[in-house]
Every structure is written in structure tokens, then in C-alpha cells.
């Protein structure tokens, strides 16, 4: 039988801010930008949450709901630093660690009883170690599946530990609202409410065949989840398994729509750099470069180009995406612009006859830039063309140097981030 821990840092961004500014403690704090700015809430303190503020909510809405809230811009490098600290503790606890995002992780502790003792004692020990190393609170759920561990850590919040005894999973889940189940979003919730299902127990009481008829594959997955199983692709793959992304992308929404070519192209430079950095972190080379444009009226276009070789160089990605942009852009005001790469290969493959030396120089320069960013943060160095577009790194964007699964063989120092929001793993 498996033993899985899910560790989730409590109000991570806010708590880190509190370490640097203790006067924020206990107050309603909103991280992500200033009141009234365009953009969304990255995190809210528990005090702010009482007013209905939650992450992903527009900053303006948050300001309205909680006028006395303290708005903080957020410091990605601090979160990254603390995420690394957490990761180090986890790594010292068990090698089978998978960071699911900057502030949560799954650990596989199956068979670790002789080392760490019974599950509850092990969880307490881990909880203490995290606190000693970071001065931050976390919550830990322990169970036989990832799904139940995740739900348990949520129930244990704040600053708690909860172990679901083997065999008790369905009983534990039954009284919970169905949206507590990972993978049940607004739409599924609405559809389930429509057939009178509001609690996980209601769902577990339904016939699998009925759910499959009504919801297809999703229905089957729901039936499994209601019993506490890792069903339906949400938790495919073993913890600690490195899986490469199928695509990497970065996009930016302008705080004000713009039709200035120089601003748009500068942003493309910046985004190409971010994409190139991710590619190099994964030791991948991309053959397809794609541009995404969203105009003020929300009409959205993508244009892709497949190269005759694979690349990991910012300048090449920029060259191609800029060409796509110059061809596709109507001149209208742009709301969002994005750079996306895919068709990955492990090696650069075909070597260049004409650009060999140039590429080698770029390759060296960019890996030096990567090392500088590792030490001094993402915005410490950039292509000159991108300087016009320096935007504050958004805290809700998962940083490139997120600690995670085992680094790929042949890679240098940087750890490989796990599946991230903008990296579709195709599952």
C-alpha cells in the first residue's frame, strides 16, 4: 500500500512577505500588484480571505471587497528562494519528491516506516523541519493516494497535519463538497449539481456505468475519485518521474492595450528570452515557434512556423516569432502577446554550416546569462531589445528555476521544474 504526503505551504507568498515585514502579520494582505491595477491577485492572507478575496481574482475586485487590505507587489526572487529551501528539506526527507508548484509538493513515503516511523509521526517531523528551516507554516496531508493526500492537506489547514487511515478514504471524502476534489471545476460542479450531487458521498453512491454514460471518460474518473483513487489522468505518473513538457510558452497581458510596434516587439524579445531559458533548463531544442496575439476585442490569432532545425537560442526564437508578428499583425491595439515553442528534440540535431560559430557564441553567452539569472534573479540580465519591455515579474507565474524532480542526465546545476502551468505535458 502506498503512503503519499501532500505538503502545502500556508499562504505562501503572504507568509514570505511577513518574514520581511513582520508588521503585515495578521492583517489583510493582498499580493500581486497595487489596488486598482489591471492584473490578478496572486495570494491573499487569511485575514483578507475572510472578506472573500482569493487568488486569481482581479485586483480591483479585491480592493472593493476589502478596502482596508494592504496591497503588496510581490517579490518573486524571495518566493523562489524559500521554495528552494522547502525543496531542500523535502529532498533530505525522501528522494521521491515532486514539486507540484512553487509552494506545494508530493512525497512518496511508501516503505519509509523504518526510517521515519508511523505516518503521523513522520508528518509531524517533516512539519517541524520545514518550520525550523524556513520559519514558515505548512500543512501536510498523508494518505494512500495523491488525491486523498491533497484533499487532506487542504482540510488540515492552517498549520496542521492530517492522516487518513487506509480504508477510510471514501468515508473521509463523503461529507465534503464535490469541488474539493481536484479536477472538479466550475463546469463539472454545475453539471453534478444539476443531477443532485453536491457532496462527494452523493457521487460515490452513483453507479459507475451511469456516470460513464452521462459524463463519458470524466464520469469514470469521477467514480474513482469519489472513492479516493488517483483516477483520470490528474495524477498519472509516479512521484519522482521526470517527464518533459510537450510545449513551453510565455505570454503577457499589457496593463494598457498597445498598438506600438516597438513596445510589442520588445515584449516579444522578452518573452523569447523567457521561453529560451526554459528550453535550456529542460535541455530541449524546439522546432516549432508560435506567436499568439489577442487584440482589444479579444479576437485571438496564432501563427506558427516550423524551422529546418531545432533551436534553444533566444535570438533564433525571436527572429522567427518577430517575422510571424510582422506578417500577422494588423496594426490594431494588442491586449496580449505570447511566444510558444514545441516539437522538442533532445539534441540540436543538424549542425549549421554557415552559422556554426555564431550559434556557438550565442550558446555560450546565453548559458552565462542563465547562470547570472540563477544567482541574481530573472530580470538581472536581458537582451537589449527586450529592455523596453521590462515588466515586473508576476508572482503567479511559476518561475523558471523552480526546484523539482531529478535533473535530467547530462544537465549542469539547475534543477528541472516539474510540469508547470505554461508547460503542457500533454496528459
Amino acid at each position, binding site marked *: 500500500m502506498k503512503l503519499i504526503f501532500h505538503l502545502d505551504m500556508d499562504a505562501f507568498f503572504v507568509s514570505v512577505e511577513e518574514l520581511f515585514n513582520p508588521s503585515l502579520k495578521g492583517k489583510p494582505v493582498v499580493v500581486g500588484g497595487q489596488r486598482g491595477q489591471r492584473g490578478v491577485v496572486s495570494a491573499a492572507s487569511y485575514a483578507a480571505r475572510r472578506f472573500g478575496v482569493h487568488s486569481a481574482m482581479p485586483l480591483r475586485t479585491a480592493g472593493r471587497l476589502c478596502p482596508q487590505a494592504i496591497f503588496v507587489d510581490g517579490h518573486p526572487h524571495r518566493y523562489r528562494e524559500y521554495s528552494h529551501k522547502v525543496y531542500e528539506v523535502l529532498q533530505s526527507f525522501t528522494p521521491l519528491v515532486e514539486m507540484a508548484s512553487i509552494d506545494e509538493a508530493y512525497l512518496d513515503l511508501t516503505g519509509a516506516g523504518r526510517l521515519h516511523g508511523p505516518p503521523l509521526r513522520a508528518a509531524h517531523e517533516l512539519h517541524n523541519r520545514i518550520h525550523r528551516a524556513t520559519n514558515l507554516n505548512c500543512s501536510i496531508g498523508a494518505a494512500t493516494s495523491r488525491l486523498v493526500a491533497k484533499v487532506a492537506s487542504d482540510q488540515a489547514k492552517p498549520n496542521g497535519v492530517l492522516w487518513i487511515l487506509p480504508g477510510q478514504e471514501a468515508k473521509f471524502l463523503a461529507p465534503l463538497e464535490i469541488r474539493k476534489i481536484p479536477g472538479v471545476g466550475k463546469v463539472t460542479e454545475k453539471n453534478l449539481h444539476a443531477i443532485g450531487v453536491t457532496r462527494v458521498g452523493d457521487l460515490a453512491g452513483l453507479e459507475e456505468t451511469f456516470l460513464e454514460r452521462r459524463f463519458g471518460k470524466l464520469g469514470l474518473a469521477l467514480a474513482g475519485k469519489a472513492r479516493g483513487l488517483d483516477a483520470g489522468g490528474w495524477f498519472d505518473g509516479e512521484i519522482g518521474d521526470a517527464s518533459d513538457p510537450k510545449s513551453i510558452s510565455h505570454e503577457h497581458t499589457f496593463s494598457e492595450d498597445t498598438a506600438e510596434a516597438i513596445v510589442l516587439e520588445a515584449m516579444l524579445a522578452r518573452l523569447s528570452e523567457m521561453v529560451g531559458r526554459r528550453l535550456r533548463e529542460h535541455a530541449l531544442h524546439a522546432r516549432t515557434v508560435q506567436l499568439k496575439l489577442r487584440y482589444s476585442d479579444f479576437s485571438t490569432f496564432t501563427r506558427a*512556423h516550423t524551422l529546418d532545425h531545432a533551436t534553444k537560442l533566444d535570438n533564433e526564437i525571436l527572429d522567427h516569432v518577430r517575422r510571424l508578428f510582422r506578417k500577422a499583425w494588423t496594426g490594431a491595439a494588442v491586449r496580449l502577446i505570447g511566444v510558444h515553442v514545441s516539437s522538442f528534440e533532445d*539534441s540540436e*540535431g543538424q549542425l549549421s554550416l554557415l552559422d556554426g560559430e555564431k550559434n556557438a557564441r550565442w550558446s555560450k553567452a546565453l548559458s552565462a546569462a542563465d547562470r547570472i539569472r540563477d544567482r541574481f534573479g530573472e530580470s538581472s540580465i536581458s537582451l537589449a531589445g527586450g529592455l523596453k519591455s521590462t515588466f515586473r515579474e508576476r508572482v503567479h507565474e511559476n518561475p523558471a528555476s523552480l526546484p523539482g524532480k531529478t535533473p535530467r542526465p547530462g544537465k549542469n546545476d539547475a534543477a528541472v521544474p516539474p510540469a508547470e502551468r505554461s508547460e503542457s505535458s500533454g496528459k
Partner: protein
Amino acid sequence: MEFTVTKSDLVRELSLSQGVVERKTTIPILSNVLLEADGDRLTLTATDLELGIRCSCPARVEKPGAGTLPARKLLDYVRLLPDADVQVKVSENQWATLVCGRSRTRLAGMSRENFPELPSVSQTRAEMPAGVLSSMIGKTIFAISNEESRFTLNGALLLFRHKGMVMVATDGHRLSMVESAEEIPGITEPYRALLPKKAMQEILKLAQDAGAESMVKFGGDENHLFFQIGERLLISRKLTGNFPDYERVLPKEHPHTVELSRDDIRSAIERVAQFADERSGAVRIQVCPGELKIHSSLSETGESEESVPVEYDGGEVEIGFNAQYMLDFLRAVPENQVVFHFKDPVSAGELRPAGNELTYTYRYIVMPMRI
């Protein structure tokens, strides 16, 4: 306009102009061929604004004049007619009537007023046999880049020297260079131009139809290149931009060399390439004392290896190559024996025809793949 031509003449000349006619154009008249009847000839003109062709055939002109007709539809129809005279009449309202035997067809045309004028021909700079030109094209055209963004590589460099002519094409991964040392009459000063791939394809067709012995008159001005082959004239816009300094990437020396039978190595690579990754086409070429081995494997499909005996006593070297790049040269080179020069897995390899009595130079430089 009213004239009569034989079906075979009309089909031949229409076919030759077909490659130039724009398929998916936003300018409708470019899908048409311009027909001009005067004296005892019918002249056909087609253009896509980059490339233009003018050819002609004997005709019995009853009423001189001009009109344009849809090139594709006209050829498709005339091709199906019996071998006989075709009588064509284009009326004022631009409708054409075609009569051949018992067949009678009406076809909507467009006024010649809107048909773009071809640039006027400048003086002849050089003359060369069609066979020489087309064989140089055949040895380089496959190395031209299809990557639109590298537009200076979307054609070949054509270089006239005091003695001889050079053609070079590259896509940035491999480079093909052929130099003919034959005296080119008319060349008084060095001349260089970038010739688009589409023009090269059309020259191949025209040269094949005219025969290897017929002479090609070549001219060029600021923006255009002219090739006159017999009665037919091809006009191409020059590619602008700087072709890379190709001499810089030609290897100066090669530590290792093996001689191979062209057909043996070609069929070996063709077979092994069946098990190469479809996208990259990578095969491994391993040279060891006494043999050259080609190997490829696909984890889910299988693997394949061939061994070709060679005279070689150097150290073992293994290099990855795109099989297609190797085959392109092996299919283009006319000589039965080839030499393969190589250094290491990251340096350019080179293929050449073997033999001391070659009257021309043919060098094919290929960068390896990292695998």
C-alpha cells in the same frame, strides 16, 4: 485576333509556360497566358511578376491581335483535342472561340491591357551550351533552402569568371558548388547574380526541350536575368541580398578520405534510412579500417546496418548525417566513383566525384548531425 496553329505546337508551348503561371494568385490576370498573333507566329507570354516566359510557334495569322486566356484551362482542354489544326478567334468582348475538327469551345478571356509588360531584354553577356547550364543546375538546385526567412538562400549564386562559370547553393546545412572550367564566350568581366530556384527549374525544362547542344544566351541588368534558349526567353527577377561567403566554409583540408562506389553507398543509405527518424533522417556513418558502416535505429520500429568495404587504415570515426542530404548528392553526381572526405563528428564532411581526369569541379559540403 484570329489564327490557326497545330495542336502539338500549342500544347508544347503552353506546357513550357505553365510552370511560370501563378497558381494561387490574388491578381486574376496572372493566371492567364498572353497570346499575340502577328506575321506568321503566335507568341505566348506568362508571368508571376517574379518570373516571365515568352515562347512562340508558327501560326497562320488571319487577323493580328492579342488577348489573354486562362492558362491552365486552355492547356487542359487543348491537350485533349485530336492532332489537328486549332483555329482560335478572340473577339472584342474577350471571349475566345476554339475550333478543332468537330470540337467547338468558347472560353472567357481578359483584356491584354491589364497584362503586365515583361522587362525589356538587355544585351547578351555570355553564351553557353544548354547542357552545361542544366547540368550545373541539376548538381546544385537540391541544396537551395526552402526556408522563406533566409531569402538570400532561396536561389543559387551564379558567378562568371574570366574563364569558367560557378554555381553555388546552400541551405545553411550543406553546400553544393560546381565549377565549369570551359571557356564561356562573351564574358569580358566577372559577373555575379542570385538566381531564384523557380527560374532554375524552368531553365531545366527549356534546356531539356531544346537539347543539350543548343546555345543559351545569358544577359542581366540591375534587376533581371535573361536566358534566351532558341526562340524562348526566360526573364527572372534577381534575388537581392548578399549570398554568404561560400569560400569561407569550403574545407581547406580533410584528414581522412575514402573512395566509394556511388551506387553501392547510395543503395546502402537508401535501405538504412528506412529506419531513420522520419523528421531528422539521421543515420550514423562509421568508418573503420577496411569498412564503412551505416547504421540507424528506431526504438519502436527496428534497426538496420550496412557495411561497404573501403580502403582505409585511419582511426575509427563515427559521424551522424541526414540521409537525405547524402542521397541528394549521390543521385545528382554522374560519375560512378565518389570520394568522401571527413574529419570528426562535428566538422563538415565533403563528397566529390572521384577521378583525376574530371574537367570540372564539384564539391558537396555537408554538416553532420549531433545524435
